[in-house]
């Protein structure tokens, strides 16, 4: 028996993950597994973004970049070295998280870097990283990287079921982390930072450390899920790994679902991904891109505090400022 509430909550999330693990046994159709993969991938991205950017209200446009760093770390290690996949997997976390920690160490020295300025710097950095990747022949060099052959015989082995299970495990891990943070001491500190950093600091919160570490964790998880995605893509190229639509969708999913809770971004990710898949099923990809994008834009305009805020009709409480 697990006695405390957080233990029970964690067990519940893990149980839900185990339940979803039965999917490959139910259906082996690639279409079903790929749909599940997409849902879980976006869930992981939105929930991990929210850990820092939502809880502490530091909206970052760089989550797609950290995800891409994870993709390229894995593609490079699989093709250029003979190390086992597990090493590439962990390295994806370490490199993406490491970049974020370095960035955080530099940016969070001054509290100027919040709001639109933090968003901009992270966006700018995403451009820089994409340029570096496309100009470095070890990583890509502008030609793209074939990962499929290198992934053969590894843990993932290009199998849809294994890819699905890997991303499921990562989604579960990310949600558990978000849940534990949101319901614990660390989350209290992040919420205090969100509300008023000066008060947080004078109440004993080492805001610098909390921000740097949480940003690193958030980015690391995005990099981690980038690792199986390199194998999923099979062929990795800058244009499809670093598009602006990834950070855009992640932000909108989290904001629509609600950034103050651990589960809000799950709702946002599932709704948006489902809508996207349904539209893509209708035919022209370009048209569905436009419809989903406009839908998100209108929703954000109408309810900048998320769908929850719309339903509850609470008197204005700023989510983003």
């Amino acid at each position, binding site marked *: 028996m697990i006695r405390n509430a957080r233990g029970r909550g964690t067990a519940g999330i893990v149980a839900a993950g185990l339940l979803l693990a039965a999917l490959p046994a139910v259906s082996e159709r690639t279409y079903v597994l790929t749909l599940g993969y997409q849902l879980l991938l976006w869930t992981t991205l939105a929930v991990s973004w929210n850990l820092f950017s939502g809880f502490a209200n530091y909206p970052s*446009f760089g989550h797609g970049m950290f995800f891409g760093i994870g993709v390229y770390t894995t593609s490079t290690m699989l093709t250029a070295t003979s190390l086992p996949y597990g090493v590439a997997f962990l390295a994806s976390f370490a490199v993406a998280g490491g970049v974020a920690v370095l960035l955080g160490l530099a940016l969070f020295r001054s509290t100027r870097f919040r709001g639109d*300025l933090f968003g*901009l*710097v992270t966006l*700018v950095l995403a*451009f820089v990283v994409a340029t570096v990747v496309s100009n470095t022949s070890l990583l890509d060099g502008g030609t793209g990287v074939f990962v499929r052959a290198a992934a053969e015989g590894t843990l993932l082995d290009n199998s849809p079921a294994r890819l699905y299970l890997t991303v499921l495990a990562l989604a579960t891990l990310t949600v558990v982390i978000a849940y534990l943070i949101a319901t614990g001491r660390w989350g209290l500190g992040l919420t205090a930072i969100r509300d008023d950093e000066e008060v947080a600091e004078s109440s004993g919160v080492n805001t610098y450390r909390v921000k740097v570490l949480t940003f690193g964790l958030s980015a690391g998880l995005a990099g981690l899920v980038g690792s199986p995605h390199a194998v999923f893509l099979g062929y990795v190229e800058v244009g499809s790994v670093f598009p602006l639509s990834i950070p855009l969708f992640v*932000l909108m999913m989290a904001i629509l679902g609600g950034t103050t809770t651990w589960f809000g971004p799950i709702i946002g990710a599932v709704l948006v991904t489902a809508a996207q898949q349904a539209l893509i099923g209708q035919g022209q990809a370009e048209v569905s*891109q436009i419809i989903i*994008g406009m839908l998100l834009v209108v929703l954000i305009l109408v309810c900048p505090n998320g769908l929850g805020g719309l339903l509850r009709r609470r008197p204005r409480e700023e989510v983003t400022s």
Partner: protein
Amino acid sequence: MSPMQVAVLQTIVSGALLGTLFGTIALGVTVKWGLLGIADFFHVSLTLFGAYVTYSLVSVAGLHPLATLLVTVPSFFLLGMALQWIFVRLEVKLFTSLLVTFGLFVVAESVITLLWSADTLTLRPVLPEWLTAPVALPWPLQQVRVLPPDLLALVAAIVLIGTTTWALRATRLGRGLHAMHQDPGIAEVFGVRLTRTAVLVAGFAAGTAAVAGMVVALKMPLSPHLPLHWLGVVVVSSLLGGLGRPLGALIAAVFLMIVQNLWALFYSPSWAPVIAFSFLLLYLVLQPLLTGRGLRSLGGAA
């Protein structure tokens, strides 16, 4: 002059002229961001949209390139006003505006691809000779050649940025805008009509995008992902020049493009896009040490 010197001079001049185009695009961004509190990425897409419309009007409808302005400027003006009116109505905050216009930016690429295809389109074959033949600069730069659309970019920048800078300082609307930026409540007491001012300014900004779009259509081949390459330079020059100060943005854009072109001449051109960003990062790190006013309005974030 030695060939090398000519090449360097040529690079500097074309860089500076390209900078004036980006300065014109940045005009709308810096005014809206600095004075209306709207971080408008979509403005960059609107410029390309203007370029495509110009393309169609010239190549399909057979209009004179300059005559297209009679169509594009008023319609863009209305579009800009309508968008701003929605923003005012919904009391959109700075960060929400950033997110929304970023979303529109991403959507716009798909819309343009859908309407005009992803292929590169160019007006060059249908343009009259006086718009395509290189002209030599007067002494002492007689060895340097420039293209007429580049001179058009220069003229557009001087006219638009000159007028705007003057209007912000000297007209009732300009002073009202500054007052509104400082304190909307007080501005209203002194008779500034907030919604009307904001909507007019946004309409004007969109109108400048139409002009810049016309220059773009004459100057370069069009493809839907161009805004992605412009965004960095435009945003960085707006920030470096000091938000709300078009002349500052123009100077920054000219400087950035000269440096970027020189870099491309001597080193690998593929690294050139990083130049603008490096300057921004450098500036952001050094800015607290300088007493510059550049990012003043960003400090607290709305």
